[in-house]
């Protein structure tokens, strides 16, 4: 086993210094070493998106990023979306629109939706469908997820 490697990063707004296993993925590091179990592993090959995180403003599948690659970066997981104890408008919209069922894809799906709205304040349905295509949901058939993103868009515009 390789020796642990010391890295610093910003996780959900807080600077952290970590000794990481160089062969571990960012997902494993967050789940196992930091006990943030929101992000999920559905495939381990970057196909399902359940492990999605926002890293330096980009949506990434954290099962494909090795822990040392996260050094110096700013990382947001599903646990980092709440602000001052209240839900992010995207999170609230998924609840209100019924855009969740089993919930396993949701930590990744919500991050993908948040990332979309960070970059496009008025996405069309086609743009929503494109932006979420890397996140598989097996339960909803996506209809209510589209509605959730549209609801979040409307509410954020109304602010």
């Amino acid at each position, binding site marked *: 086993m390789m020796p642990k490697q010391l890295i610093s990063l910003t996780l959900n707004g807080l600077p952290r210094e970590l000794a990481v296993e160089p062969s571990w993925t960012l997902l494993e590091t967050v789940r196992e070493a930091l006990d943030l179990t929101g992000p*999920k592993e559905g495939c381990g090959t970057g196909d399902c998106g359940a492990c999605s995180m926002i890293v330096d403003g980009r949506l990434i599948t954290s099962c494909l990023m090795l822990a040392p690659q996260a050094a110096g970066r700013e990382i947001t997981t599903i646990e980092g979306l709440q602000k001052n104890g209240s839900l992010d408008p995207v999170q609230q919209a998924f*609840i209100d629109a019924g855009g969740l069922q089993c919930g396993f894809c949701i930590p990744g799906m919500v991050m993908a939706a948040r990332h979309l709205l960070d970059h496009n304040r008025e996405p069309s349905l086609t743009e929503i469908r494109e932006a979420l295509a890397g996140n598989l949901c097996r339960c*909803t058939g*996506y209809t209510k997820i589209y509605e959730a993103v*549209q609801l979040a868009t409307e509410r954020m515009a109304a602010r």
Partner: protein
Amino acid sequence: MAQETKVRETQRTDANGHHAVGQRVKRLEGAAKVTGKTVYADDIKFPGLLHAKALYAPYAHALIKSIDTTKAKQLPGVHSVYTATDLPHYNRNDSNRRNLIFPDKEVLFYGQPVAAVLAEDPHVAEQAAGLIEVQWEVLPAVLDPVAAIEPGSPLVRDPLSDVDRSEERGHVSVDTQETEQEGAPSNIASHAPFKRGDVAAGFAEADVIVERSWKSAMVHQSYIEPHSTVADYDITGELKVWTSTQAPFYIRDELAQAFDLPENRIRIIATEVGGGFGGKIYLTELMVAALAIAVKRPVKYIMSRKDDMLAATPAPFAHIDLKTGMTKDGTLTALEARLIYDSGAFPGAPMLAGCMLIGGYYRCDNIDIQGYEVLTNKVSVGALRAPGAHNATFAIESHIDMMAKELGLDPLEVRIKNAVEEGDLMPNGQVYPRIGLRECLEAIAGSEVWRNRRAVEATPNRGVGLAIGGWLGGLQPASAICCLNPDGTVNVTVGSADITGTNTSFQQIAAEVLKLPLEMVNVTSGDTKTAPFAGMSAGSKTTYTVGRAVLLAAEDMKQQMFELAKQRLEVEPEDMEVAEGRVQVKGAPDRAMTFQRFGKLSTNFGAPFPVLVGRGAITARKSAPGFTAQAADVEVDPETGDITLHAFAIAQDAGFAINPLSVEGQMQGGASQGLGIALWEEMQYDEHGRLLNPNLLDYRLPTSRDLPPIETIIVEVPSEEGPFGARIVGEPSIVAGAAAVGNAVFNACGARVDEVPITPERLLRALGKL
């Protein structure tokens, strides 16, 4: 909002005075899910936890000549290695997948687990599994179920004995039994014949006869959370299992039998299920429990995606030969079918359901249906949402369109003309209770997708197709407890795993009975030591059965309150009612006692009332089948064979939608899975029986890019016994997609593809371009 989604809202709060049921209610557990707080089995950690990784057979059929675990055990960090010979004792039966952990002499499918390694680091366990040395003697693999039923076919395995059908019974209840394998050894695990009338006479009467064979691929449930289980057998002799399952009580009973343990020494905690769809009943728990018993430490086993695709229980391939006849006026006169379901290496294929549905949608005096459940050297199959239904439906619903086309009849009207109704017979002679098939067809006629079909089809290569589907549903007793708290709030406890928002529906049911605001009722799924019994959350029966128990438990608590209030309110219970958190005298609402007062008077020190605990327990004997009609709008590229889905509509009879938000979600989700079956999903095996696509890149699930918003129409034809008229909901939605898309593709380009998924290659072949 997505304009394409429209829901027919029935009158609510309304004539019936419902304030809680029939409302669009957000999920109880929504906030936990959107924040990542929900605990799934892989999120559980214990001190001393060992991770298990399995070694999976690299051949579809082979003898194990020897297993050498020396090198694996020598890898630093490995705790132990287990094979068939050193597992603790359990009651093994090699005929049933669920009664066998590791084989000791013969593997029957590619990916069958043969050994497990335990280590504190899962990576070490995985590496060590690769160091286990097995000497194999490769045997011929039998892979084609159609060839496998022929006399003289090589045998898949040793003959079966004492086959356990209990799991299949959890998904559908029909008054029929398949005949188990008997006589000379063959690969036919079971056979079921259904006959009525005289098919030869029926075909003689017909003006058009269509005869064709239909194939549907093996598909995987593809829950995003793979199978995940943690077990611990502690010093007290209690076996605890935290597992992603739809069926905690079923697992308890199975493990009790496997290890000769009393059921009250086993505690199954169903963690949040990250998708099940019938595939998460009982699979990994026996192995993980055995390992935990062996090492007396907690053991966690999380299947990788590849493990899950190799060694879980996907849905079967089926080959169906169908011959149907119809007269000019659109009357179905004869139906003859042979259904071959590929069960893989163990029995368990849902062939019976396919037989019941292929001859169960339409009235027909003359039927001859022969179902075969056939063994092959492939992974053994299990349930996927209405197990076995889509395979049979693809065949019959393609035929209806083909016959209507030949006769120049409208495909919708032909279906309405023949659709079964209350009092009609199923293939086994069972009589249909009240059902809403005709109403679903009438509803789909009003969908945008169907109404726009003429305009759509004016565009070259566009087509709209229709199909119906249904599911008979499972039946099992159920129970619930309803407790009043000192502050007047109510706790409901059930034993069912909440896989579809059922606990939210139970909240609505209890709140409705007690006339309480929703937030005053909370619902918990207890584990097998703390909750009253419930059947498995499968067969679409949870709201239908446990919901009734919740209704009775709340009713029971209410009646107890009425009895206790007699003295203080000075009226008989029949003159009391509940309203706004109070028990009050009818016509004199100022003479009342609040729920809070009852709560205090039944819990305080020296309180006069006994604790208020309502009990609901039911047996369910009468099914409430659910039907659906669906329409697809597709565009075909005749050069590449690509198919684009432009729009899709589903109408489904929910009986009464306790929570329309959840019901729509079930309809849309099931429809999307049906579309996956129609267009993309297929487990592909090579000529040696090796799975070629055990990952989510090559096994193609529907993505948001593929699926437009689904037009969703709830139909409500009340069931006779369900709570507030609710009937089964979860499963029918998956059933019709394959046939609806097949019919749409035909209408788009004139090519009839007889195998799903309808891949570009298959379409180009049907178009004569390959």
